[in-house]
């Protein structure tokens, strides 16, 4: 899938953890197969290499492209169905690119107790999208998350790898402005 140019792809095996590239769209103009094989072969020696491979693939392309599944299957001597089964089991793996930013709102009980539901309604209103959707300008994808471990400063949110506690109207407006910059 062609997408607007985002950040540059991080080099392996370093992952885009905090302080890394905050952009979630990565150009997939290069040879997906070739890049995938490189990633898979650098990790397949691990015990239980599937999740590390899928994380690295998603870090590289921003999602797990359909075309990569048979490659992983063949490299790990699994069926394509098994790989598909794993990818779709986990909430984290995407089958299409996200927006330039990903905003995760926590919906756990601790956040609910501090008005998290109202915050979520307001975020959807301001961004004009529901959960699992991306704004038309490709700026941000909104996702629910179950617990960021910020339960004593609820409601909590995470924009890419940046965390926010006691999320209120002001915080939401700032996040909305930030993602649209």
């Amino acid at each position, binding site marked *: 899938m062609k997408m607007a140019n985002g950040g540059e792809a991080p080099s392996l095996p370093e992952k885009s953890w905090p302080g890394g590239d905050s952009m979630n769209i990565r150009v997939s103009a290069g040879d997906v197969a070739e890049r995938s094989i490189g990633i898979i072969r650098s990790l397949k020696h691990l015990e239980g290499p599937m999740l590390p491979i899928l994380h690295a693939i998603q870090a590289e392309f921003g999602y797990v492209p359909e075309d990569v599944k048979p490659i992983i299957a063949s490299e790990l001597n699994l069926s394509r169905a098994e790989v598909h089964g794993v990818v779709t089991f986990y909430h984290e793996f995407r089958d299409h690119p996200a927006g330039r930013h990903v905003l995760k709102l926590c919906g756990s009980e601790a956040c609910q107790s501090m008005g998290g539901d109202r915050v979520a309604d307001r975020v959807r209103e301001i961004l004009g999208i529901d959960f699992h959707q991306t704004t038309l300008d490709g700026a941000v994808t909104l996702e629910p998350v179950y617990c960021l471990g910020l339960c*004593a400063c609820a409601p909590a949110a995470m924009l890419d790898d940046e965390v926010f506690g006691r999320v209120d109207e002001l915080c939401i407006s700032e996040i909305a402005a930030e993602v649209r910059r």
Partner: protein
Amino acid sequence: MTIRIFVPRDAAALALGAEKVAQAIAREIETRGLDAKIIRNGSRGMVWLEPLVEVETDRGRIAYGPVKSGDVAGLFDGGLATGGDHPLCLGPTEEIAFLSRQTRLTFARCGIIDPLSVEDYRAHGGLVGLEKAVAMAPAEIVAQVTESGLRGRGGAGFPTGIKWKTVMEAAGPQKYIVCNADEGDSATFADRMIMEGDPFVLIEGMAIAGVATGATKGYVYIRSEYPHAIATMTEAVKIATKTGMIGASVMGSAYRFDMEIRSGAGAYVCGEETSLLNSLEGKRGIVRAKPPLPALQGFLGRPTVVNNVISLASVPVIMDRGAAFYKDFGMGRSRGTIPIQIAGNVKHGGLFETAFGLTLGEIVDQIGGGTATGRPVKAVQVGGPLGAYFPRALFDTPFDYEAFAAKDGLIGHAGITVFDDSADMLKQARFAMEFCAIESCGKCTPCRIGSTRGVETADKIARGIEPEKNRALLADLCNTMKFGSLCALGGFTPYPVMSAMTHFPEDFSPAPMVEAAE
């Protein structure tokens, strides 16, 4: 002498602006030409005071908080560098009541040291336990841990020593220590806090487990929602390997122990140990039937210790101070200390490590200070999304595995979510069912189908459709899930649902024919 200023790097502190505060302090240090250094420590666990800035003085560490970046210049004008007075000054950190009332064994160093400094770790009593362990026979280590009374802090409360003994006695060319850091329960953040604030204590605990059981490889399975913990642990493992804490020769001994950090991918059920093992192997996180026990056939079918972060992080102090010392704390069969996490709608939210035995009322009203909104406490959920809702009437329940079980609840990973009187308990019961439906691994029918039927039934009650019949149906469904599910997800979802229905019947009797009741 260089002044040392502490600004936490804990995710909760960052979520409340610690990064901007640290930057502002760095600017002030430069502008004012001070001989000062910023140390990014873990959190002390007083989340309502974060970002909590501390400065080292000859009177001990002086705390200021909660600090905003805009406060920083004023703090320096007020003499922050020497612990000077200021409206935000909280006095000596150790004298803050929330901290001074605690018994910090597992979290002894958290918030005090630089998390990635081996020198700091050693200077504050680190590595003594591991040094003792490598000089002991494995069976002696296992006996110490068993004798201490330590039980799994992840929620199940299984005696840690018994689990270790099984793995120690199991035959196999390769055994594993797997740390369950898939801390998915709402209101829990103890695992995250220790991994970000004192990662070496977990590494030390895992190495001791390895020496005791003959396992030479350890994995920490951390949920992907914790990027900061993953980063800190990854760095800590690198440092620990480089400095010989672990690796080919653990502390210069003949034991080998290697470690690797693995990231989950957003599946709550992977906090269940067999599901976690499948996930670690690269499969769907489907629950396995037991037996075989993971201790005998765990990761890749080999003998494996699966322990929670806090269980493993409590081992070094047990080895250091002895089983009797640890066992001395607590009540009944709940020995030692437990890091209680007070969260949700609460005035003084944070982590409070203490011996078992405080009552729920003491924790919520005295330590937590009641609700953040100032309204009356209606209910507290103890033990995450699978834990029961307790009304005020049960606030005399002591914090103890058995006492909570006797009241149809569980302490789980010791997280407490406080709700004020605006909470709708029918809505909370529905959420518990909905959560189970979303997160069910799908292996067993009561959990997979029962949770969806549960949501529908709760909706019918909310709409006033045959409420009496549907309440009975919901109770029956809970009974089926409780006794028919393979693991705690389906088996414990009835706890929040039934407790809500039992203790708050008024919320389950809405006015009939209200279309938009929700």
